[in-house]
């Protein structure tokens, strides 16, 4: 180990950083006798970058050499950049060395395509295999499947890793073809379907044979780049919704387009990435996964784009004032969950706490409800009913105005933070230790 490895690591970490999916969650892998590591339920963040993102995994490319030329990618072959490749052994040593020092939860390995998709995939697969077999490593591994790689190699990789994913990147096939002529949706969906079927088959098999090997037990995820192409939020969210339901994806990540190749005329001329929009998409995604919203409730034909000024939950409530106010002491959980100012945790607490007594405003505040916002949408036995007659536009202005004096909150890329004004910050980095609430 030496300076050269260090330099290569810097180049390849820099090249991998635009891939946002870093969560090492969704799987419990118990440590085996005498091995190193376990993957706990939710990813632990071991550090945070100066841009505020969680560092949970050693996120690195095996190589940033690539035979392709995707317009939105910094590693495209026509870019003149320093290039590097880490060997299988170097990747294994770095992962183990970092893991043993409690720097990371595991490895996130992606790669540019060298020689051929199969050649690339095979070497990536070997990293995982070596870690598991030779190093008896039980930490987390998330691997990118290379589109176009053979099913056999993807299958082998799936046996060793926790999560496999294929990035879609561009949210529609025609736009993908325009920006990445060498790629198409068929090549992306083929491995995605293959992985899905293997995950299902393997789960089934393990029901009968407890020691049957696992296959990507933490499921698969993908990433969509937002703002490089003209798709609407409605298109993006319905694609995401299909991916969750049809492809059974565990996570869809949204990445605001960073203008990395400004010279390319096919890309929009923007200076900064669309962070607010990215944030709103994550909030919408959150609503679909934890708040039981459907994509078409969040965006529709009349409202194909998300409101950048207010969060999608509030926006929905303002469009559906006829469903409010609701009585917090009686309403079902699903409805309480829809109140702006009440997050998942507060909603659960309300359900628990109201078994003991009728809840008043003070109780609600203590529980973590943001009354400043919720008061327009709920009744208990105290709140005056008059506020509910306000028209939607007035209410909107009033709420935005009410939010103003606060210092402008920073858009956050840490997904677990989104709580829609829920005062109670979730214990965001929970492991099974943090079992409270």
């Amino acid at each position, binding site marked *: *180990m*030496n300076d050269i*490895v*260090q330099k290569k*690591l*810097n*180049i390849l*970490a*820099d090249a991998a*950083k635009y891939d946002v999916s870093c969560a090492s969650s969704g799987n419990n892998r*118990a*440590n085996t006798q*005498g*091995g*190193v590591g376990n993957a706990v339920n939710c990813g*632990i963040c*071991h*550090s*945070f*970058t*100066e*841009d*505020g*993102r969680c*560092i949970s995994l*050693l*996120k690195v490319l095996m190589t940033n050499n690539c035979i392709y030329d995707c317009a939105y990618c910094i590693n495209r072959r026509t870019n003149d950049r320093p290039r590097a490749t880490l060997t299988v052994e170097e990747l294994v040593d770095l992962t183990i*060395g*970092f893991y*043993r*020092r*409690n*720097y990371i939860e595991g490895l996130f390995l992606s790669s540019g395509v060298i020689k051929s998709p199969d050649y690339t995939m095979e070497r990536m697969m070997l990293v995982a295999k070596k870690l598991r077999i030779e190093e*008896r490593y039980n930490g987390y591994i998330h691997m990118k499947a290379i589109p176009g790689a053979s099913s056999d190699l993807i299958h082998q990789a799936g046996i060793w890793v926790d999560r496999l994913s294929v990035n879609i990147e561009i949210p529609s096939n025609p736009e993908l073809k325009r920006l990445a002529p060498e790629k198409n949706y068929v090549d992306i969906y083929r491995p995605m379907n293959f992985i899905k079927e293997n995950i299902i088959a393997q789960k089934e098999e393990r029901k009968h044979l407890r020691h049957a090997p696992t296959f990507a037990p933490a499921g698969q995820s993908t990433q969509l780049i937002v703002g490089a192409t003209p798709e609407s939020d409605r298109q993006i969210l319905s694609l995401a919704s299909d991916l969750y339901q049809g492809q059974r994806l565990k996570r869809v990540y949204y990445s605001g387009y*960073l203008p990395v190749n400004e010279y390319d005329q096919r890309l929009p001329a923007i200076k*900064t*990435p669309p*962070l607010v929009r990215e944030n709103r998409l994550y909030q919408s995604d959150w609503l679909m996964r934890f708040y039981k919203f459907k994509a078409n409730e969040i965006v529709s034909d009349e409202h194909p784009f998300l409101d950048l000024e207010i969060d999608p939950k509030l926006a929905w409530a303002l469009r559906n004032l006829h469903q409010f106010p609701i009585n917090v002491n009686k309403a079902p959980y699903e409805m309480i969950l829809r109140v702006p100012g009440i997050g998942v945790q507060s909603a659960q607490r309300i359900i*628990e*706490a*109201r*078994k*003991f*007594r009728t*809840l008043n405003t003070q*109780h609600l505040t*203590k*529980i973590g409800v943001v009354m400043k916002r919720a008061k327009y949408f709920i009744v208990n036995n105290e709140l005056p009913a008059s506020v509910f007659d306000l028209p939607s536009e007035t209410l909107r202005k009033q709420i935005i105005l009410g939010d103003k004096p606060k210092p402008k909150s*920073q858009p*956050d890329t*840490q997904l677990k933070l989104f709580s829609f004004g829920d005062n109670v910050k979730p*214990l965001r*980095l929970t*492991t*099974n*230790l*943090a*079992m*409270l*609430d």
Partner: protein
Amino acid sequence: MLLVYDGTFEGYLSVVFEVYKRKLEPTEITAKEHFQHTMFTSKEEITTDFDHAERVWKGLQQKLKPELNQIPYSAWLSGEKGIEMALLEYIRQAFILPLSVEGNFGDANILTVRKAARRVMREAMRVLQFVRFQCTLDGIYFSAISPEYDVLPLTIKQLQNRFADQNWVVYDLKRDYGFYYNKKTSEEITLADKTFSRSTGAMPANLLQEEEGFYQQAWIGYCKSTTIRERLNPKLQRQHMPKRFWKYLTEKKR
């Protein structure tokens, strides 16, 4: 009436036992070290009885939801003023309520206990996040940190699962004690001879394995390289990773 105990959790549980047995109505329960003389209240010191403590603990466990049964201990660890009385109420309710006490968010005492427990659990979580091991010449992975509360005991099981096949030490600099794990079990230790920095826990290079320097440099370089300069947001960084931990973090050392 004021009840005083020795400052241990068993001591506290012994108090609870006495309260039940003798139907006492304390107005305050406090650890000996925090006790301040008052003229007007009567005071009684309760001696710690492990048997009594265990009986209270066992009885209580049956009344708590298994996934929430660490709350009383964690809340007590917070050492917050008045937590003993709030916790007594929590325990009382746990024994008499037909519903599970954890859900009684409308009650000020229950909420106090849950919030205190939450703060403590969060601190334990931070230890698991931010502790950094350095591999010493004798092959022991050493780390030190100063958590706000005495939370190391809450982290040991997790560390053992995670680092099952390496010898390690995790040391609380503030409370001057730690745990040593020998690939089988862990034991509590106090290191008389401090070969490491008392403020940062850093071991001098001559006591570390040769490759340690490489991994530290590689990690520092990695953290820099993985930062997206276009999105700098130091405020957010500090929010997630409080400044008070930075001196223990390899990646934040110069």
